[in-house]
C-alpha cells in the first residue's frame, strides 16, 4: 500500500498524458506488484486545459474512473479560465475544489500531504520560475500559506529563474507582489512560532546578479535582495532533501509507502523534459540531480519527451562557447553509485531519433519500467522509503 500525490501546474501535452496515464494507471492498478495504491493528482494553472483538450481528455476520463485514482482540479483557476462548465460535465469522478462546502485547492493538497507524510513537521516548494512571467510563484505563496495554516514549517527553495523572487523593490502594477508576499509569509511564520526556511541557490543568484563579489573580502554578498530569502549553496538546500517532508514544485510529486515511510532518506527522480541547451532546464535538472546523488541521496534521472535530445548524436561544444557539454556531464558521473540514468524509449521512438552509443550506462525504460521505478513494490530490491519526483 502506498500513497502518491502529483501537482501539475504546467501544460500537459498529449505525449505527457500518454506516458503519465500509462505509468499512473499501472501504479493505480499495481499490475506489477500486487500492492494497492492511492494516487491523487492535483491540477491547476495551464494543466487544467488538458481536462478539455481532445488530445488529453480521454486519458483523464479513464484515469478518474480507476477507484485508486483521484483527480482534483483547482475550481478557482477553472472559473478564471472559463473551464468550469465543460470540465464539470466532461469528466466523471473528477473533484473540483472551492465550491461552498469544500476546502480550497491548496488546503486540500496540504491535507493530502499530511496524510501521505505522517508526522511531517514541514513542507517545501521548489520554485524554478520567475514572478510575473509565470503564475507559479502565486501558487507557491498559496501553498506555503496553507502549509503554515496547517501548523507546519514552510520551506522555500528558489532555483533557476525562481531566484528572481528575492529581488528587492518588486512593484507590479497588476499582479500579486511576490516579494512582499514572501516577506509577509516569513513574518507570519515567525509570529506563529514556526521557522521559515527560505533559501535561493547561490549559483543561480550569482548568475542573475543577486550575489556579488566584494573584492575586499573575496566573498559574495547579496545585492538588491529581500532579507527573507537567504542565498545558500545548492548543497545546503539539498541537505533539506534528506528530511522526511514533501517538496512540491510546478510539476512533480511524491510516493510514500504506508507505515514505514519515515525510515531512510527519500529518493529523488528528476525528469529532464526539455532540449539540452537553449534553456537552463536540462543543466539545472542535471546539476541538482548529480549534487543530490553526491550527497548520498539515491537519485534517478529520466530523459523523457524532448529531454531525449540530450542523448542524441555527439555534442561538440565550440571552443569559444561557455556551456557545459551535457553528454560529458553524464559520461563522467555514471560512476556515482547513488545515481542512475534512464532514457524513455517511447520518447526516443516517437521522435525517430537514436541515442548516442557513447552513453551505454543510460538504461532504456518503457512506461512499465517507469512505473516500477516510481512505485517500487515492497519485495522489489529498488524499494525505497519515499520518493520525490521533480520535472525540469
Amino acid at each position: 500500500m502506498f500513497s502518491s500525490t502529483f501537482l501539475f501546474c504546467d501544460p500537459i501535452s498529449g505525449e505527457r498524458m500518454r506516458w503519465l496515464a500509462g505509468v499512473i494507471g499501472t501504479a493505480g492498478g499495481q499490475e506489477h506488484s500486487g500492492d494497492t495504491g492511492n494516487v491523487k493528482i492535483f491540477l491547476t494553472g495551464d494543466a487544467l486545459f488538458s481536462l478539455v483538450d481532445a488530445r488529453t481528455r480521454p486519458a483523464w476520463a479513464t484515469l478518474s474512473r480507476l477507484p485508486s485514482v483521484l483527480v482534483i482540479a483547482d475550481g478557482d483557476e477553472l472559473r478564471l479560465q472559463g473551464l468550469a462548465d465543460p470540465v464539470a460535465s466532461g469528466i466523471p469522478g473528477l473533484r473540483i475544489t472551492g465550491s461552498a462546502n469544500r476546502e480550497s485547492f491548496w488546503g486540500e493538497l496540504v491535507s493530502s500531504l499530511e496524510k501521505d507524510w505522517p508526522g511531517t513537521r514541514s513542507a517545501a516548494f521548489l520554485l524554478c520560475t520567475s514572478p510575473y512571467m509565470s503564475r507559479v510563484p502565486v501558487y507557491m505563496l498559496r501553498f506555503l500559506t496553507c502549509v503554515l495554516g496547517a501548523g507546519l514549517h514552510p520551506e522555500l527553495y528558489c532555483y533557476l529563474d525562481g531566484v528572481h523572487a528575492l529581488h528587492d523593490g518588486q512593484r507590479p502594477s497588476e499582479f500579486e507582489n511576490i516579494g512582499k508576499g514572501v516577506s509577509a509569509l516569513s513574518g507570519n511564520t515567525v509570529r506563529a512560532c514556526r521557522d521559515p526556511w527560505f533559501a535561493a541557490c547561490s549559483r543561480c543568484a550569482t548568475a542573475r546578479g543577486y550575489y556579488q563579489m566584494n573584492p575586499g573580502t573575496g566573498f559574495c554578498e547579496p545585492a538588491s535582495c529581500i532579507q527573507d530569502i537567504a542565498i545558500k549553496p545548492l548543497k545546503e538546500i539539498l541537505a533539506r532533501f534528506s528530511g522526511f517532508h514533501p517538496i512540491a514544485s510546478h510539476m512533480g510529486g511524491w510516493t510514500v509507502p504506508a507505515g514505514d515511510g519515515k525510515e531512510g532518506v527519500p529518493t529523488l527522480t528528476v525528469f529532464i523534459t526539455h532540449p539540452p541547451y537553449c534553456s537552463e532546464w536540462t543543466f539545472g535538472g542535471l546539476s541538482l540531480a548529480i549534487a543530490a546523488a553526491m550527497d548520498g541521496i539515491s537519485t534517478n534521472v529520466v530523459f523523457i519527451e524532448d529531454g531525449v535530445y540530450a542523448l542524441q548524436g555527439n555534442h561538440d561544444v565550440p571552443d569559444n562557447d561557455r556551456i557545459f557539454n551535457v553528454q560529458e556531464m553524464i559520461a563522467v558521473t555514471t560512476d556515482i553509485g547513488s545515481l542512475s540514468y534512464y532514457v524513455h524509449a517511447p520518447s526516443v521512438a516517437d521522435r525517430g531519433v537514436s541515442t548516442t552509443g557513447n552513453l551505454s550506462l543510460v538504461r532504456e525504460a518503457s512506461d512499465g519500467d517507469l512505473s516500477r521505478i516510481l512505485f517500487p513494490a515492497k519485495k522489489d530490491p529498488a524499494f525505497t522509503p519515499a520518493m520525490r519526483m521533480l520535472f525540469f
Partner: protein
Amino acid sequence: MENTNAKDFSELTCTNLMIKLKILLNKLSPGDTVAFYATREQVDNTCSPFSGQGYQVTWTEVAANRYLVRIGK
C-alpha cells in the same frame, strides 16, 4: 599576478567544478596540467580530493579568497 591561461571557475558550485575537472582531466595528457582560479571552499572540498586519485594538486593564494590551482597528471 593573474595567469592569463587559467580559467575562472570560482563561481561554479562544488559539484559542477567536480564535473568540469573530471571532463578536463579525462582529456589531459600525462605531464600536462590544468590551471584555474577557485575559492578556498572549492580548493578544500573539490580540488584537494583529486590528490587521492593519482593527480598532483597545488594551489597559490593570489587575492582574498582567490586561489590559482594547478592539477597535473
